[in-house]
Structure formats: C-alpha cells, structure tokens
C-alpha cells in the first residue's frame, strides 16, 4: 500500500460539502491519481451536520470504510466546532482549515489545541462578494488545496474551470464567480 492521503469534510446539508469533495476528487483524478469521493449519507436535511470524504493515492484504493484518521479536515461551517469533534483522529502531520473570519491562532483554541497546521478563510465573505450568495464550498475547496499543495496551483485552477463549465453548463453566469472565489480563497487562506 502506497502513501494515501485522506480528507474529511464537515459541513451542513445544503452547503455543498459533498459537491466540494467530488470536485476535489475530480481535480486529483485529472492529475492521474486514484481517488475516492463519497459522502456519509444520513437523513438529508438542510442544515443538518454531514460528513464527506476523499482518498487520494498513486495506487488503486481498496478500502471502503469511512475515514477515522484523516490527514486533513475541512470545516465548511464554523458553528460545527461547538457540536462536532472535528479533530477526532486528525493526524498532527496534517492540518485543518475552517471557514471563519477569525485568525488561525484564535481558532486553535476551539480545536483542543490541535498541534498540526490550522488554516482559516472567510469563505462567507468571499462567496457573498463573488457569487452574491452564500455558497462556502468552492472557497473551502480552494483553501484546502492551498494547504495541502496536492496539485500545482495553476493546474488545479485550470482543472476546476473545466469542471465548472461541465457542472454549471445550464447556468454559465455562475462560472466566473466560482473561479474568482476559488482563486481568492487560495490567496486569502491564513495558515499557521
């Protein structure tokens, strides 16, 4: 078994965490990797906590369970910090990125003083400014890719542009905004 990267997403129903995990899978697939992207399905309710997962490897992936010891965690909704143990099993060699206007230093206190990398990005602000609506998933995707460096930046953005053109074929007006949101999050994410 080669080195496998595992990512866990925490979001709320309707915020697009599942879509973000599938977009991430797609981006890594485009670079030649083996990927998995899957949500943990529960009762589908808007606003309910949900989890989604990614595995990325240079070799075929055989394991088909949830992820308990992720390398990285993405928190799409800051309010989840109060109710979900987001750092459970998170490796200290990895990192966590949270959607919040707060600094990484402030947020670390809410993460049981997690020792690995902590990143923060104001995905709400970026989303509202670039898309006119609150869709935090694309900025969070940008932020986690900036933290992990799994794909070279320009290649990732190009790959995502292609995905957006495919995904938003029926509403092309949102493509540019999503690309801008993605790029801004990659620039604005603060990591400590």
């Amino acid at each position: 078994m080669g080195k496998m990267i595992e990512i866990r997403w925490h979001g709320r129903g309707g915020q697009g965490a599942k879509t973000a995990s599938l977009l991430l899978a797609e981006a890594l697939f485009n670079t030649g990797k083996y990927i998995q992207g899957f949500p943990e399905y529960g009762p589908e309710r808007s606003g309910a906590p949900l989890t989604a997962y990614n595995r990325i490897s240079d070799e075929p992936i055989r394991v088909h369970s949830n992820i308990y010891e992720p390398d990285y965690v993405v928190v799409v909704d800051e309010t989840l910090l109060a109710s979900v143990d987001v750092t459970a099993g998170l490796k200290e060699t990895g990192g966590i990125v949270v959607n919040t206007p707060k600094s990484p230093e402030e947020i670390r206190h809410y993460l049981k003083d997690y020792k690995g990398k902590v990143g923060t990005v104001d995905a709400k602000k970026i989303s509202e400014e670039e898309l006119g609506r609150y869709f935090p998933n694309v900025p969070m995707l940008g932020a986690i890719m900036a933290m992990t460096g799994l794909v070279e930046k320009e290649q990732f953005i190009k790959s995502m542009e292609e995905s957006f053109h495919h995904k938003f074929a029926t509403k092309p007006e949102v493509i540019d905004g999503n690309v801008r949101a993605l790029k801004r999050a990659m620039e604005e994410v603060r990591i400590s």
Partner: protein
Amino acid sequence: MAIRERLSGNEAVAFAMRQIDPDVVAAFPITPSTEVPQYFSQFVANGQVHTEFVAVESEHSAMSACIGAEAAGARTMTATSSQGLALMWEMLYIAASMRLPIVMTAVNRALSAPINIHNDHSDAMGARDSGWIQIYNETNQEAYDSLIMAIRVAEHADVQLPVMVCYDGFITSHSVENIMLLEDELVKNFVGEYKPKYSLLDKEHPVSMGMFDLPAFYFEHKRQQAEAIKNAKQVLIDVQNEFAKISGRQYGLFEEYKLDDADIAIVIANSTAGTAKDTVDMLREQGIKAGLLKIRLFRPFPADEIAKALSHVKAVAVMDKAEGFSAAGGPIFVDVRSAMYGKADGVKVINYIYGLGGRDVGVYDIKQVYDHLQKIADSGQVDNLYNYLGIRE
C-alpha cells in the same frame, strides 16, 4: 483503447446500460438504485439509446413489465433496491421459472423495519432461492464489467435465466472512483444481437408462456430449471474468459486473495472485501498468514470449488451482511459450511454477521475477525460459532 474515467457505481452501471442499449427498461425509483434508471432515462431522452423506457408505478409492475417485454422477445433490464426488490418477490420467481433472461442491477440496501436506506445484503440474500443467477461485486469496475457479462450469461442457450448484479448501496453506488471503461463498439459486439429462441411476437413459431402446469409435468419443469442454473457456472467461466480478452480483466467464480498459503481466511462479498484485503496486507506484514475468498457467483453456488479453495486453511470466518434469522448462521455461512462438509473436514468454520443497516466496517474491525481466527487456529477450539462484529450489547 480503454477509457480512463471516474464514476460512481450507479453512473458506471447506467453507462454500461447505454452501451448495451437494451430494447426495454422498466423501472421504479428507490434509494440507492434510483440513479440507475434516472441516468439511463436521460440517455433515452437524448436519443443515445433505442430503448423503450417504461416508467411504472411500482416495482411489482416494473418486474411484470420486464417479464412481458422479455417474453415478447425484447432484451430487458431494470434496477432496484431493498423494499423494491421485496415488492418484486412473486414476479422474481415467475421471471426465472419462465426462463426469461432479464438482467437486473440490485443495489444492496437493508430491509425495513426499522426503515433504513443504508447498505447490507438482506434484500438480495432474501432473493437467493428465486431462481435468479446472482453475481456480487466489490467495486464500480466489477459492477460495470459484470453487468456487461450478465447479458451473455443470461441469454446463453444453456442457461436462459435472469441475472441479478449486486453491489453495495452508497458505498459503491454513490462513491466516485476510478474506472476503466470499454469503448461502445466493443461492448456492442460483445453482447451481440439478442435472438431469443422463443418469443411471443415470433408469429411464425407461436408459443404459449406461463401456462398452468399440472403435477404431470411441473416437477420435470423444475428439474430442467435446476439444470439451467447449474449450467450457468460453466457459461460464466467461458464468458469471463472471453471478456478478459477484450478488457484485460480476468474474473473467476470467486476471487482468492493471498489464500494459497493462508492459515486463516475470511469469506466475504461486495465492497468490504476491498477493506479486508488491506487488513490481509497489514497482517502479512506482521508475518500472519491471512487470506481471503471473495464471493462473486453466489447463485448457482460454486460449492465444490469453494470447499477445495478453503480445504488447506486452519480456520475460516464466513462474513454475512444479512442476518438470515435461521438461528444457525447467515446465508453465506450456511452454504460455505455445507459445501465443506465431507470435503474440507477439520477446518474450523465460524460465522460473523457484520455491517447491518450500514454500520461502517473498517480495516481494524476486520482485524478483530482475524485475531479471533488466529486464536481458534492456535487452540484448535471454536469458542463461539456465531458472532456479531462490533455489536454493542
């Protein structure tokens, strides 16, 4: 050239259906199989297939429509899960007993009650005596490949029986993973044109189907049906060998993973087999001779072959993702243990029920099973025959 893609299990199966281009698809939506007819109906709407898509009002009607279409001479496919398969019950037997080679995707999901949308194998295991051929699949790739091969097995003159292609709900159906797809032309040529020997619309050779059958002949008809499903084993072997030539992927009646020199082994079906392979590798690194046998063809059951493959191990755990409620082990356990009786005596065989209603099973959960087997292999004593993996009690 094979096409490198990333698809969910449901996307992969719908893609295969587009390539197969059946004459009729009749289906009713139910989680987690809904996407199969959903994606396929888009292919119909886009004119990418020639299929007559019949949107019915229930799964009972879906299977009834499939039976009518197949009897008329149409290559027919459908998909369902859980309660949908349960509602098809009486029609499943009729499809098989009328020798209609319908191919159905069964995206495995728990049965109510309590209501649960997640994966286990209760639905398909309940249909194991219906006369359908059943093929279980670990991945999106295997499901895609099996669906294409299922057409050839079902329609083979020595078989003429329906086939159920099973894979795990959500875990396989909704997870996006890498896959190698075949080109359309290759699939089209592989499945060929459907020329049924008997059909209701063949007016030059009129036949009756589904007739009243008195004691004078019913028994003989059942005997012929039993012979047909027996034949399916060799036909599947031949079709798989032929498929290997176009795909480069060779399948067997079951898969052996590091079983040759294993002291302890588990028998398991569908997606958790992949997880268990990682457990096997982990244990091998520790010098423990762990192995695995993955069920693929479950009906007909390759009893002699499985007994032979397990005859050299010291202890085996048969993993069932269905309870069965026999109070004497789950359905796969019962068949494996029965197959080994008189052929692999001395091997200790235990049963584990796992993952019911979508309870997640990871690499370390499977390790507990191997740890238990190691204890049995060392002591020669079976402490508990029937076990529940990770249950809280």
